[in-house]
């Protein structure tokens, strides 16, 4: 399958760019920091390690994948390699999705690596759920980063847009709870703000429901909530991929 070559190129570029070493460094630093914090804990020291390592590595994985995708695509565009690849006998959809496939595979590898330390403190089934969920989350982030890197002209705006979308998706649930809380003033402006927030939420994935640390602390999630969470993330990744392909079809070069 010739399109697989494009996916493989994404993995080779990540390896040659030292992403593997960066991932290992993040893993070691995360475990070391959690180990230090657990020494200060009076109780739940193992839970503290599990929670801190999981939270840190989740953020590190997202940052690594977003940075890798945006930098790789922008370099390809700036070096005019994208123009060259457009001359290859693949459809534009195939080219876009093959690249995305490579980045999704990279995310899956990162998720597997970053889930390993959790086996020290959590049940294997819970760790497996967490790893699968992180892989889906990274697929979504890769799709977002690829979309913004292709559509926005510069590296920094593309990276900023990816990070903003991710952070907003992780905090939108808390924002909605604040807007609907009993302390919120009951007036027309507040009502409008609440509706606006609900409208924004419709356009975002609910990342606060997936890759949850409490799975590692208190046991694996029930099947229904786990599947609905990752299905939501994958659905959003498909939406971003479709939007990216749509934009890529219209691209002049």
């Amino acid at each position, binding site marked *: 399958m010739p399109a697989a070559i494009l996916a493989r190129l994404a993995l080779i570029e990540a390896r040659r760019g030292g992403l593997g070493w960066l991932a290992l460094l993040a893993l070691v630093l995360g475990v070391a920091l959690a180990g230090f914090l657990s020494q200060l*804990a*009076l109780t739940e020291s193992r839970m503290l390690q599990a929670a*801190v390592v999981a939270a840190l590595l989740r953020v590190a994985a997202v940052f690594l994948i977003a940075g890798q995708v945006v930098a790789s695509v922008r370099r390809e565009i700036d070096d005019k390699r994208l123009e060259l690849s457009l001359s290859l006998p693949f459809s534009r959809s195939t080219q876009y999705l093959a690249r995305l496939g490579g980045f999704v595979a990279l995310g899956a590898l990162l998720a597997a690596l970053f889930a390993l330390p959790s086996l020290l403190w959590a049940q294997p089934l819970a760790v497996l759920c967490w790893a699968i969920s992180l892989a889906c989350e990274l697929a979504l982030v890769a799709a977002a980063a690829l979309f913004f890197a292709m559509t926005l002209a510069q590296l920094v705006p593309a990276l900023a847009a990816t990070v903003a979308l991710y952070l907003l998706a992780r905090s939108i649930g*808390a924002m909605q709870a*604040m807007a609907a809380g009993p302390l919120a003033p009951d007036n027309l402006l507040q009502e409008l703000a609440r509706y606006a927030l609900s409208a924004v939420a419709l356009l975002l994935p609910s990342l606060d429901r997936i890759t949850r640390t*409490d799975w590692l*602390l208190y046991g694996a999630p029930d099947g229904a909530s786990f599947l609905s969470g990752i299905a939501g993330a994958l659905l959003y990744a498909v939406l971003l991929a479709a939007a990216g392909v749509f934009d890529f079809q219209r691209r002049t070069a």
Partner: protein
Amino acid sequence: MTRDERPLSVVPALVWGVLMVALAGQIAWRTLQAPPAPQAEDLPPTPSTQALRLAGFGEPNALARVMMLYLQAFDSGSTNTQPYRRLDYGRLIGWLDAILALDPRSEYPLFTASRIYAEVQDTAKSRAMLEFIYREFFVDPDHRWQPLANAALLAKHRLHDLPLARRYAAAIDRYTRSPDVPLWARQMQIFILEDMNELEAARIMLGGLLASGQIKDPAEARFLAQRLKDLEGRMERAPHR
């Protein structure tokens, strides 16, 4: 991930000098600005749970535990002979409440409430903390009976308030349903009424917890063993009554 580089010898001496001076300056500056241990009056007002949830970006469990480490640093300096006594307990309870709201299944807030903050040599503050533990017990009696059991002992031996101790012990008996709650905890009223000293009661309680496998965390086991040792030392020094 390699790049072509010229040898270090081509870097001008002036650039070397500026780099070294700047590095030394940075280290000296940070040494002078070493942060002092947080004092009791530094404890800020409790942020709202919703604000904390927003700040946690969907990681309430990790945030709750890191916040506990942050909280226990206040008024706990090594030169402090009576740690935590000067804390504003209204704020402190607010913080513990907020942390519990972030992760209701965490045992850390009520553990510190009963084992550290309730043991201060200030009756009013100790009572406030015991009432907080009692209030929170009803949210999940089957998982929060341990702090209340310790609260009952503190009420009897530190506050010398037998009715209060019996109220706490009776609550454990009446509201716990789980088979994981040991019999001695359900029958706490009996040994609250018995004429035993604090050390004997603590030994029974800690021995019971260890024997039943309720204490799994090594840090907690170490902490409780040290507490028992401290109590033994204090009882030896105290005049016999």
